[in-house]
């Protein structure tokens, strides 16, 4: 697609191609508000390999978006501070890089698609300008060539008549088309990792499916690693290879998609799956998870899920559960992971 072969080491010194594509290791993020420290992410860990899709699932406030912004390095600091952990891209810890290197990584290596394309695009510049800006800033492309590249990208993401629409402004596109523009912008520099932060939440159901299909197609074409952040388990089922379930700022379960759906090893995941309406449960009352997500400023002791958990016992309120792997590539942060996995609880 591009005329010149890009050498990843140019923009990411020290890249090791035997290391996993993206590794998030015990990432911790805090918000400091009025002298109070509020943990938003409390040890998120997951790995993403090339050509794979990782779904990060969780309720609002579970730290999924903060995690993605920490990976991009675009958290507002202050109030947010990364207090620990590592984000390794090709084995290079991004958190230890200079701001200049991190800027090169953004767009070139990792790109992000936000939820609401209408507010995520600048209303005063044409979509062609906003896509072309990446080429002009990172590659020094001329304004004219950048526009041609933008047309090419808009065409790839399925915008009809891209040539004539490149000069249009975000408000002249429909919601689905705007999200396609966002995706085109993220793809511009051919990144290895694409983070899609609730890419379909703001869209109609029919358009949602189109956008998901588009993301999946592009990921396969380019052999990218895709992180799909969502609160909707239903969206995840068809597209993801692996799932990381987040609760109260930590990853509570990590598994292959089939395993996670068939044999969840964390009560939270299990409860979430039961809350999805299915054809065979028509007419029955839908199960819900009782209670509310915890306030991150006042997390319950022990396992933060215990007040809402169906399997909780006394020790859940006092002891922080360890990471247990009841099967290969399947881990859960629950005292009773084995029992939940084997459906004894």
């Amino acid at each position, binding site marked *: 697609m591009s005329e010149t072969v890009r050498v990843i080491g140019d923009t990411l010194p020290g890249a090791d191609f035997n290391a996993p594509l993206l590794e998030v290791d015990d990432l911790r993020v805090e918000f400091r508000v009025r002298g109070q420290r509020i943990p938003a992410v409390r040890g998120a860990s997951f790995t993403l390999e090339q050509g794979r899709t990782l779904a990060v699932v969780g309720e609002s406030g579970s730290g999924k978006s903060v995690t993605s912004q920490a990976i991009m390095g675009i958290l*507002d600091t202050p109030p947010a501070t990364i207090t620990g952990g590592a984000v390794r891209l090709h084995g290079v810890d991004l958190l230890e890089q200079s701001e200049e290197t991190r800027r090169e990584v953004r767009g070139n290596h990792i790109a992000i698609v*936000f939820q609401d394309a209408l507010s*995520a695009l600048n209303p005063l510049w044409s979509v062609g300008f906003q896509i072309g800006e990446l080429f002009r800033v990172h590659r020094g492309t001329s304004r004219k060539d950048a526009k041609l590249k933008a047309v090419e990208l808009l065409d790839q993401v399925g915008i009809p008549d891209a040539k004539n629409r490149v000069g249009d*402004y975000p408000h002249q596109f429909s919601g689905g088309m705007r999200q396609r523009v966002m995706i085109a912008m993220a793809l511009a520099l051919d990144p290895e990792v694409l983070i899609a932060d609730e890419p379909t939440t703001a869209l109609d159901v029919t358009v949602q499916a189109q956008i998901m299909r588009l993301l999946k197609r592009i990921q396969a074409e380019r052999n990218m690693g895709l992180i799909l952040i969502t609160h909707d388990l239903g969206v995840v089922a068809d597209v993801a290879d692996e799932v990381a379930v987040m609760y109260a700022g930590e990853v509570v379960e990590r598994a292959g998609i089939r395993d996670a759906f068939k044999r969840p090893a964390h009560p939270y995941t299990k409860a979430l799956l039961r809350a999805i309406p299915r054809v065979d449960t028509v007419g029955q009352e839908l199960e819900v998870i009782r209670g509310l997500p915890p306030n991150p400023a006042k997390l319950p002791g022990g396992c933060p899920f215990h007040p809402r958990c169906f399997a909780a016992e006394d020790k859940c309120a006092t002891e922080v559960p360890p990471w247990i792997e009841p099967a290969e590539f399947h881990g859960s942060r629950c005292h009773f992971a084995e029992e939940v996995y084997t459906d004894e609880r």
Partner: protein
Amino acid sequence: MGRYVIRRILQALLTLGIVLFLLHYLMALSVQIRGNPALLFFGGDRTPDPAMLEQVERLYNLDNSCYERVGDPCITPFVERLQDYVQGDLGTTLNGNRDVAQLLSIYIPNTLRLFVFSVITLVAVSMVLGTWAARHRGRFIDHTVRGTTILADSIPVFLILLSYVYIVAVPLTRWARGIWGTESFMGQVFRPNYNPDYPWTTIIIPGIIVGTVGLATMTRLIRASQLENLGSDFVRTARAKGLKPMRITIVHVIRNSMIPIVTGIGFLFAFMLSGAVLTEGVMGIPGMGRMIFQAVQRQEGNLVIVGLTVSAFVVVFVSLIVDLLYAALDPRIRYE
């Protein structure tokens, strides 16, 4: 875009027409209620010869019988006056028979100079302070900037003017003349009054003083709009694209925060007209503000109408420019 421009121009013309008619109607009412200003020509209480009075009335376009009927809108003289304006005839003053067009050619440039300096002051100072405060939001600098501008704004212009003229100007001028001489820029710039030999230099300080009117409003407007854009989703997108902070500010923040700023300038322009009346009076600048004020005092009906027409024209013209700037800045307005 073309339709938008045409519609805005037509709106501006309509507004101007309404303002002109209201002005005319007010003047007609004042003649109808208060009495014939042509009598002034004969010096107050004396009853003039009817033939002579008629002659004077004709001279001042007061010979229409509508001026004797209270509430009559006097359409015929209004149309006649508009026709005269179109032909470039702005009439004469009541006494001395001076040509009003000629008077304007002296007064308008002075007021424009005053506005040039005050707009530059207003925009430059509020841009710097507003951006500075936005960047240090909630900290000491932010509070200081907001407090100081409110303080500057709450002191009436005439107080600033009087304290400048009577306390600061004279010693400063004396000091500057001792070093640079009377005929230098520095020797003239601090003068407490206008000097026709230095029309630009001696208007700088009054211009700056008029520019402090609305400083707080403008600074707050800029601060708020920059804060709004700095925290916006598209700035986050711009950061995710790996742009440098400088480029983000220039390309993605400043243009987006220009709209309220342009609105503010257009709005404050009308305010500055009133500031100009005081400033021109105190500093002895022969400008439009002083002309209108004196014309009202002397019952110079024609001069008042012409003066207010000019200021109405300026205000309508500035709002037209503001509207066109909107369209240039924001595509969403262009394609409404």
